[in-house]
């Protein structure tokens, strides 16, 4: 009898504990989820809503809903140019990051310690410095009164007016590549960590030259890292603000800087919101179709999810 009276509450306590345990993951992730929803989801929804409101330069944001901003962004060649410029810069920046970052990661990987750690730190160290500071550093280098200009003048390659890469595509791309190449290195590095270097030896022993081994055996194995690194670099460039706004300025507008201008110069918030939403949708489409393609491409050879 005593055994019964002890046993029943015990079991009840166990089941109630089990029930409360089911909620533990929700309690634990709840604060972060609420934080995320309020600080990211809500502004995003408000931006989306804002993009449908009318705007008048004399009366400000109206009360009625309209899709005219979307019509404007999608039909005006002014915006086409900005979007095309943004994606062109992104594409060129991504390509250059691949050309610089992939070999850089591979060379770092083949280095021995301590050089490997030292150079990895040199490569990734700039991530610790503010993008604005680094971009202003480029201004000092490539600006009209910058180091590059003085050097060119000294060599007689530039006239007395000096030489500037400010407000040019070249200047923006150089600075963007510098800012984003560490992301490519990290991504390729992750692929290299999974690489079995004896496959290189195997290729050599089968008669491949070092270059052929690199091209036919090593590169295909780090390709997933290159592709996912490209995705990161491309997506970041397409929505980057600080570097294009400092080096490109008003003369070389990209999507992010024109959103900023619509909000803070023209005060046309609905149009700014529309441009932001269009950029977001385009980026999501590009990123998702790209990563789906990458996944399908590598599912059989290098495991689920490619990189």
């Amino acid at each position, binding site marked *: 009898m005593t055994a019964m009276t002890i046993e029943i509450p015990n079991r009840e306590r166990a089941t109630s504990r089990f029930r409360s345990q089911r909620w533990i993951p929700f309690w634990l992730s709840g604060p972060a989820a609420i934080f995320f929803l309020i600080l990211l989801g809500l502004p995003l929804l408000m931006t989306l809503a804002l993009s449908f409101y009318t705007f008048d330069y004399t009366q400000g944001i109206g009360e009625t809903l309209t899709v005219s901003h979307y019509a404007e962004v999608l039909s005006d060649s002014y915006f086409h140019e900005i979007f095309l410029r943004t994606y062109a810069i992104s594409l060129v920046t991504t390509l250059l990051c691949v050309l610089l970052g992939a070999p850089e990661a591979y060379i770092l990987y083949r280095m021995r310690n301590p050089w490997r750690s030292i150079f990895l730190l040199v490569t990734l160290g700039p991530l610790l410095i503010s993008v604005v500071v680094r971009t202003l550093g480029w201004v000092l280098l490539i600006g009209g009164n910058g180091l590059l200009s003085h050097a060119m003048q000294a060599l007689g390659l530039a006239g007395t007016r000096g030489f500037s890469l400010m407000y040019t595509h070249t200047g923006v791309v150089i600075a963007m590549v510098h800012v984003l190449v560490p992301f490519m290195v990290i991504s390729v590095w992750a692929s290299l960590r999974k690489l*079995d270097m*004896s*496959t290189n*030896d*195997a*290729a*050599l*022993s*089968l*008669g*491949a*030259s070092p270059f*052929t081994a690199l091209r*036919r*055996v090593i590169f*295909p*194995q780090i*390709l997933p890292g290159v592709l996912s690194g490209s995705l990161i670099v491309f997506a970041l460039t397409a929505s980057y603000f600080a570097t294009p706004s400092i080096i490109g300025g008003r003369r070389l507008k990209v999507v992010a800087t024109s959103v900023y201008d619509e909000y803070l110069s023209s005060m046309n918030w609905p149009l700014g919101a529309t441009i932001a939403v269009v950029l977001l949708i385009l980026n999501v489409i590009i990123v998702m179709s790209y990563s789906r393609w990458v996944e399908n491409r590598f599912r*059989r*050879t*290098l*495991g689920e999810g490619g990189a």
Partner: protein
Amino acid sequence: MSFLTLDALTKRYGDVAAVDDLTLSLEQGEFVSLLGPSGCGKTTTLQMIAGFVAPSAGRIVMDDRDMTALAPSARGFGIVFQSYALFPHMSVAENVGFGLEMRKVPKSERMRQIDEALELVRLGHLHSRYPRELSGGQRQRVALARALVIKPPLLLLDEPLSNLDAKLREEMQIELRNIQRDVGTTTLMVTHDQGEALSMSDRVVVMDQGRAMQIDDPFRAYEEPADIFVSTFVGKTNLLEGRMASNDEGRPCVELGLQRLEMAGLGRVGGGSVRLSIRPERLEMTPCRQGLVDGRVQTRQFAGDHWLYQIDTPMGLLLATCPNCGPAGFEVGDDVGVRWNPEAVRLLNDTPTQTAAAGAPL
């Protein structure tokens, strides 16, 4: 003239000699194993032959051609790596065909040879699979097919079976050896597994600290170990101390328990004691006071096909194995006698010496 000759091959890293003055000759078609504990220099030796590591001194000569300075790709040796090193982004057929492609073999001929090589390792049906879709044993076979399809003069195996589970390893030992016999490729295998080396090789090179301690056929390496290292590394053994004495006719002999042994080579030894070795399976257990030494059974282990006893005797702890013919004859704590045949006792060199390799002229 032998087919492949390693002539005083040496590799130093700083002050440490990873491989120290290794001289070895392989005959055409021979299967030789480099056997030793990790860090003994066996893998470095293989890497030097393959061309991935440059020797500090010495030569690698094949068929009268000095290969020492040749690039790995110019040597044309087939190599099976410990990790198999299959190309994960290529199908089985592409992996096997890679070497042929590098040799610019026309496509139709290439296909024929790939099929042939895959048939040889019984994987003809897995042509278009990718390495990660294969089991460990299948990957091993693909690696072997890839190494053999280029018809290499020399096949190098770097711990080829160490990643397989025990049962598969035994099957592959037999199969690998059969394939090697069929194609007749001279083979050098690196392994730390003495059972593998003994069962597969024509000759075994037992290595320690960069030096070849003994180069012999498996039976002799086991039965007549050159020194203490070889006798303990190749198989289990009982190391015993014998006292030097002289018999009634005044000839030198060794006292071991109640036994006086006359052995070859005793003349070289001065007075004092000598090191002797007896294999556990050569010890016979008898009732108490009927053997050459008495002791007490300390532990008993059952290993399926045999029993393993540890017997505490005045000569030290002796290891004895008895084939499993019915239930065990002795219990832990039993007083027993131990007996052995005089021929089973081996005299060991106390100091490490390089036997067959030492100063052998080319």
